[in-house]
């Protein structure tokens, strides 16, 4: 009985941990994995419904996130806008280190962060109390979809 309880407890904590590390970009939708962070979510009209769906998420800090999702449920693009900056470690998941690299290459203080690689594109913009940005995975995006579709 003891061993069984320990096993179940381990499984439970493992699943909690994997939920926390559950990446959004390049993986399934944020709204499925990060319940505590999401205040509301609903579908938006897609400009190219045969290629992707769009989901709008409002976080607890009132940041608005638009997820661009392939037919198989993979998030290939994210756009965000809000008074606060989103926690990019959560939002970018496995691609967060690529953002950090971009940050280390900033040519001057307080410039937007921009990363332009074949499999990961990131751009930020805005100013105090109005922060925007977008991330895009060109290799995961459906054919016929470009970064300009992500808004």
């Amino acid at each position, binding site marked *: 009985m003891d061993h069984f309880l320990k096993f179940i407890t381990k499984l439970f904590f493992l699943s909690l941990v994997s939920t926390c590390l559950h990446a959004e970009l390049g993986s399934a939708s944020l709204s499925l994995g990060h319940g505590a962070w999401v205040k509301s979510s609903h579908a938006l009209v897609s400009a190219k419904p045969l290629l992707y769906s769009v989901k709008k998420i409002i976080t607890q800090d009132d940041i608005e996130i638009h997820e661009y999702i392939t037919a198989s449920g993979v998030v290939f693009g994210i756009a965000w806008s809000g008074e606060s900056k989103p926690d990019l470690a959560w939002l970018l998941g496995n691609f967060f280190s690529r953002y950090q690299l971009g940050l280390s290459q900033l040519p001057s203080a307080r410039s937007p962060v921009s990363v332009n690689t074949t499999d990961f594109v990131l751009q930020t*913009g*805005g100013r105090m109390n109005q922060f925007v940005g977008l991330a895009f995975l060109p290799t995961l995006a459906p054919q016929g979809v470009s970064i300009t579709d992500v808004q």
Partner: protein
Amino acid sequence: MLTACGGGGGSASSANIESSSPIPPTTDTVNEIKITVEKWSASSNYPNQAFVSLEICQPQTTNCQTIPHILVDTGSYGLRLLSSAISIPLTQSQVNNSPLAECTHFISGYTWGGIYSTDIKLGTQTAAAVPIQLIDGNYAQIPGSCSSGGGAAMHTQAALGANGILGIGSFQQDCPGCASRAITAHYYTCSILPCSPTAVALSQQVTNPVAMLPTNDNGVVISLPAVDPNGQISASGSLTFGIDTNTKNSITSETVFKLDASGYISTTYAGRVYTQSFIDSGSNGLFFTDTSMNRCSISVGFYCPSAELTKTATISSGTISTTITFKVGNAESISNTFAVQPNLAGLGTSFDWGLPFFYGRKVFVSISGKSAQGGTTPFVAF
């Protein structure tokens, strides 16, 4: 015979004065300070940084200190100074008997530090007991919610690019939403560690110092000279306090663009409309998206076209619009000795008209809630 205000009848002025604009007073009591665009070795020699010097005083005393190399920033609100640059004693603000601190976010970084009250001399006038942030990475303990995903810490001259930032943009306080609730990664109280998020009344928030002047409190005018199109070592101009209060800060031929509720104008560039566009003296280039433009490989984030490009974009607000012509040069071929780089441009998702926009222009930035041009809606005029 008295000349009626408004109209233009009987006046010798050649300006076409609209009935809603006040006629400036005849006594010219201009309050302005010098702006210098220069490179500063302590701040990593970034280009297009507009600096001013400010005198701060322990409230209600003559115990003062002049701080040089403070960045003029119309994209933020409030004065933030490196704590390491301050030698006069200031008192920290409290909320519920607990010392108040703030995590301030900028586009690619953040500043952490306590909130203090100081008198600020802006030219010939004093803003009294202004809440400011003293930037200090060692204060209490930086909350995880502040640094996580917040970008680069800007707690040194090299990282910040200045001794401080003078936020004189279009709003009075830096977190209106914080007045009613404790928003993560904004204000904190630090009587026990870790510091905990807190709501803060507007009167205690870091405030645009211009808004706290006794007069000339409705905005600013930034005037920088025309510069060599290929760049130059430095330039100097003026920061004038107040709008439409004297002959130096009156809107005459300039066009007024009202800002929307979030402080934006619209910019149309290459067929696309950017509804979250803004004019920002604290940005050191023009930042926008152009996938056809060659990007730099060393100065990552800036554009490096092989030959200088001439571009146009249209700024608009409601039915008012104007087309701006600008040049984009190769960021990596501009001389490193030039602080003034008018053709510096880079990537950004919103169209950001940074300091190059200000060269050769007189730019008016009014403060929301203060009366200017017949209303309290904030605007920019140029």
